[in-house]
């Protein structure tokens, strides 16, 4: 293990929750493409879930991210295949900039999941029934603290707990602070350059 610690060690998260129900919530819903026209990520939080939060005239709709009870929440609770669609890192960036520091759901789309890890955001899976119990509990009492423990692979809330799943590679990256992969990858710079030379197509066959 040569990975340098490049960032915060993420052993878990504690915070209040916010529930966004529904399967297959795609990246266009999380951040519509028309708000991706800047060369910077700064300010994206303003547009998170834009079209489900506001009418076209800017009038707020009934969305959990508009609900005062969930203000300050750090753990987003979702259903199946959250983040499907595009590879845009704008999606987790917008969530992170709004204040989300972890996600719990039934399942996540693959590229979205990888983008979360690259930002130090655990996106952990739990069984359907457990997610349903957690959603109900958080909606009933949004002020309660949820605790995500990556070492113990558990999630606890007031009156409940559940086992969580996270691919081992991602769990280790988060826990040892190597989730920002660039430094780890550059540790093998010489091997990379050797690989670049050795490939069958390296010198035009």
């Amino acid at each position, binding site marked *: 293990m040569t990975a340098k610690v490049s960032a915060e060690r993420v052993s878990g998260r504690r915070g209040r929750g916010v529930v966004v129900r529904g399967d297959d919530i795609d990246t266009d819903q999380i951040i519509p493409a028309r708000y991706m026209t800047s060369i910077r990520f700064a300010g994206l939080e303003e547009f998170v879930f834009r079209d489900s939060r506001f009418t076209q005239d800017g009038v707020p709709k009934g969305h959990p991210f508009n609900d005062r009870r969930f203000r300050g929440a750090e753990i987003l609770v979702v259903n199946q295949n959250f983040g499907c669609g595009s590879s845009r890192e704008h999606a987790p960036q917008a969530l992170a900039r709004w204040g989300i520091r972890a996600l719990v759901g039934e399942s996540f789309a693959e*590229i979205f999941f990888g983008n979360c890890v690259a930002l130090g955001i655990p996106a952990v899976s739990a069984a359907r029934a457990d997610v349903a119990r957690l959603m109900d509990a958080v909606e009933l009492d949004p002020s309660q603290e949820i605790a995500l423990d990556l070492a113990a692979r558990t999630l606890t809330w007031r009156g409940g707990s559940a086992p969580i799943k996270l691919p081992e590679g991602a769990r280790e*990256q988060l826990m040892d602070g190597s989730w920002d992969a660039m430094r780890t990858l550059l540790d093998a710079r010489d091997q990379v350059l050797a690989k670049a030379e050795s490939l069958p*197509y390296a010198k035009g066959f």
Partner: protein
Amino acid sequence: MGRSLLDKVWDLHSVRELPGGQTQLFIGLHLIHEVTSPQGFQMLDDAGLPVLVPSRTFATVDHIVPTDGRARPLRDSQAEEMLQAIEANTKRHRIQFFPIGSGNQGIVHVIGPELGLTQPGLTIACGDSHTSTHGAFGAIAFGIGTSQVRDVLASQCLALARPKVRRIRISGPLGFGVYAKDAILHIIRRLGVKGGVGYAYEYAGDAIQRMSMEERMTLCNMSIEGGARVGYVSPDDTTFDYLRGRRFAPKAEAFERAVGWWRSMSSDSDASFDDQVELAASEIAPTVTWGTNPGQAIGVTENLPRLDELPDDDRSGAEDAYRFMDLVPGRPIAGTPIQVAFIGSCTNGRISDLREAARVAKTGNVAPGVRALVVPGSEAVRVQAEAEGLHEVFRAAGFQWREAGCSMCLAMNPDKLIGRELCASSSNRNFKGRQGSPTGRTLLMSPAMVAAAALRGRVADVREML
């Protein structure tokens, strides 16, 4: 026991195993565009790092470019800023860039193959989920986020877990008026939008072997809509014939040596797979989506599914989709009025797509009240189409003939739906708001079916018009 193409390409490009079972994977070809790269370059600059292997990254502009009036500076100042950023970044880091007017600008997944950059046996990454397109050549190609764009720029590598492989075999010939687009929509309908999570999809069988490279690209392109980050086809003579003579393909004897190696990278006949699916081409009809995810699709002659016909898991999503789409369960999809027709995108913006659409366009005129756009996938596709007179066919029928770009697939440029417009679209996503209006609606279908809908003003079975 033989090995799959995925295993061969993965093992060849593995630099080392990382803790936790991930691989440090060397990336043979990195493609970048204006929307997901500027923040990556900024992160690289913040870290004070150079681009490690600038000769393995190529750049173009596609997402935000207007398809009419591309004079600089662009009218949209943010779009102009994005173009300036990629111009400056590629110049400073000595990365080859194909700008507007170069003759090679276009959708990144159209120009990579067109230029011969996309080749069998490569690992290919790009900050766009439809990078799976390049798997048509027998490459392992996938979309990445912007932090990963930075990782590739800095190290020419990514940290990734090896996917499982599901082989999807389609046997028998595709029917009359049935295209690769229908095949992939059918696969997603059958396996679901999350069925492919954790898998690479290997497409095989005689239906695939018979497909042209452009058809294979359409197929692999939408793997991600089925949840699979990677989709590929083992390379064969169709692949090699396509590549011969392309600008970045090997030349002369080197090409013959390359073919020998490319052939060796195919999946072995006795390769084992984590999962296998068999489909009959005869089951596939011209297919249309009716909902807000690409798995919500039916054959054009079918009726919209009733809620009680759907699996429990899909019911609430379908209810929500019906509300959004304003469609009624049990009714036929054919005959649904449309207001916009869009032909283009990385899924279906290539010359063969335009030829098929033009065959239909030739038979009539765009219906009154329908706005119809044809957007070639690249400047080269546009030139070829004009050489064949396709632009005249489209214009004569009442279609707008545009410049190359992503256009109304994701509506980051001025091409957008307005209000509740319903669009027959040859693109890849029918997500809410995808085509630029938060309440706009999308029906995905093949380019020929889009042309048919444009002429009729309603969803129509293209087989009646060919």
